[in-house]
């Protein structure tokens, strides 16, 4: 595949550009990274946890923390790859300015995807620390392995979101993606409760969605739950990352190189 002929320095230059912009406003951005999940964990973990007690044999706070870690990795990568990337592609002409250099369109997509995953990792690390403080992490020996997995989760969600970005006529279009893909995953992929409580056909659908596999990896790493089929989960996430990248590169080329 020609999309996989990437010059690392080009991809890195795209990533670095976004990093430098982020660095200028890192304070405000970090506040958002800490704030939202902190409220979720506090509100639901303590509030609901009091009534629920244990779920699948572990305290609800720990159960929820691993779920929120995954859903926020999804949200962060998705937001970055939709709204921020769209601004760079459509409003600011940033991608076009890059295309006037040796950087090619698929390298821009790769750089954007890496950057979105980096942001997932940044916000994931923030939640990781909050969860640790609130007692959401039971297994510190394996918990640190969650961080590279969060980067992979970021890649898996950034790829499809960049593909949506590449065909989007305006910011309003993203609402469809949130309503049809992101919100259902947030609610039905095991963030708040085990998916085996769902009707069978919903479970089947949930099994092909990336967030289910993200949760299935992260939760056992942070808690005492056993880890099953890790390669399957890693494989599904890698598939979404690569398929999303290929599709996004193709669609972006179609949009910009007409």
């Amino acid at each position, binding site marked *: 595949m020609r999309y996989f002929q990437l010059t690392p320095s*080009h991809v890195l230059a795209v990533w670095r550009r976004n990093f430098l912009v982020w660095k200028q406003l890192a304070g405000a951005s970090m506040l958002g990274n800490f704030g939202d999940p902190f409220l979720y964990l506090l509100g639901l973990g303590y509030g609901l946890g009091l009534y629920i007690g244990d779920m699948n044999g572990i305290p609800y706070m720990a159960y929820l923390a691993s779920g929120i870690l995954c859903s926020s990795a999804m949200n962060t990568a998705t937001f970055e790859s939709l709204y921020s990337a769209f601004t760079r592609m459509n409003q600011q002409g940033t991608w076009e300015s890059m295309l006037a250099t040796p950087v090619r369109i698929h390298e821009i997509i790769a750089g954007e995807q890496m950057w979105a995953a980096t942001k997932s990792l940044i916000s994931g690390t923030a939640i990781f620390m909050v969860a640790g403080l609130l007692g959401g992490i039971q297994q510190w020996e394996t918990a640190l392995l969650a961080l590279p997995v969060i980067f992979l989760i970021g890649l898996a969600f950034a790829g499809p979101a960049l593909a949506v970005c590449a065909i989007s006529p305006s910011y309003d279009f993203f609402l469809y993606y949130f309503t049809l893909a992101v919100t259902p995953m947030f609610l039905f992929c095991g963030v708040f409760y085990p998916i085996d409580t769902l009707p069978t056909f919903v479970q089947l659908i949930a099994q092909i969605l990336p967030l289910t596999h993200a949760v299935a990896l992260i939760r056992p790493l942070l808690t005492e739950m056993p880890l099953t089929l890790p390669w399957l989960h890693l494989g599904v996430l890698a598939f979404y990352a690569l398929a999303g990248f290929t599709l996004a590169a193709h669609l972006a080329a179609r949009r910009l190189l007409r």
Partner: protein
Amino acid sequence: MSGSIVTAKNLRKTYSNHDVVCGIDFDIRPGICFGILGPNGAGKTTLMRMLLGLSPVSAGKYTLFGRPVSDASIHSRVGVVPQQDNLDPDFSVRLNLKVYAGYFGISSKDAEPRIEELLEFAALSSRGDEQVSNLSGGMRRRLMIARALINDPDLIVLDEPSTGLDPQARHLIWQRLRSLKESGKTLILTTHYMEEAAELCDELMVLDRGTIVTRGDPRTLISEHVEPEVVAIRGLSNELDAIELCEGLDIRREHIGDTWFCYGIDARPLVARCSERSELTFIHRPASLEDVFLKLTGRDMRDEA
């Protein structure tokens, strides 16, 4: 390779069965400033995008530095100044240049002396740490030119480099572009301003409806296509009035809006007649590229295509 920087043979661009560029041939020699002129919708922008590899060629043959434009490495020899401002609004002037250098694989350390040189060239030395959003239109355009030079390109492509700028800013930009040409760079520019084309270009190509209408150096184009003198007259009541005024003189007339343009080898007799009629306002001037342009591409208004 035949020494040309750009070679296009039967170059064509088709969008949904409609030819925007209709099979044109041209080549651009190194070291010159080559101007592409044409009314809106003539195919200039599409042609420029094809030249830069931003738009796939539908048919024909096109090479840049003797290589196909799909070869990503040629981009390191080209600098691009787009019409649309796409500077990074989040960065300072200096950081804009530094980040852009990164796309060419130039490290920050190597870029630094080059950036200071370019800031001086663009008369922006005192503005290096300023946010881009605080710059005037002229400064931003100069910064875009500086940015296009970061990789020390052999070819610089400029899309309407002085559109929307005040005369002072335009003259500064022209002076900089001339100095680039003197230093041996090849320039390709599109423009709507005939004055700009006459000031800068060694060779011109007038496009209309996707075909080349004419090509040559500015002075030859003027002498080939229009008479040397023009009298532009306003205040004539109608065509009959204009015919009467020019009666017995060897004058070719064009009517655009409320003005009659009268072309001739010697316009003095016509000027004398105009002077006798106090209701007329008129200007007597040598023919310019604008007259060539209007003659060749017609006088009708063009919609943006």
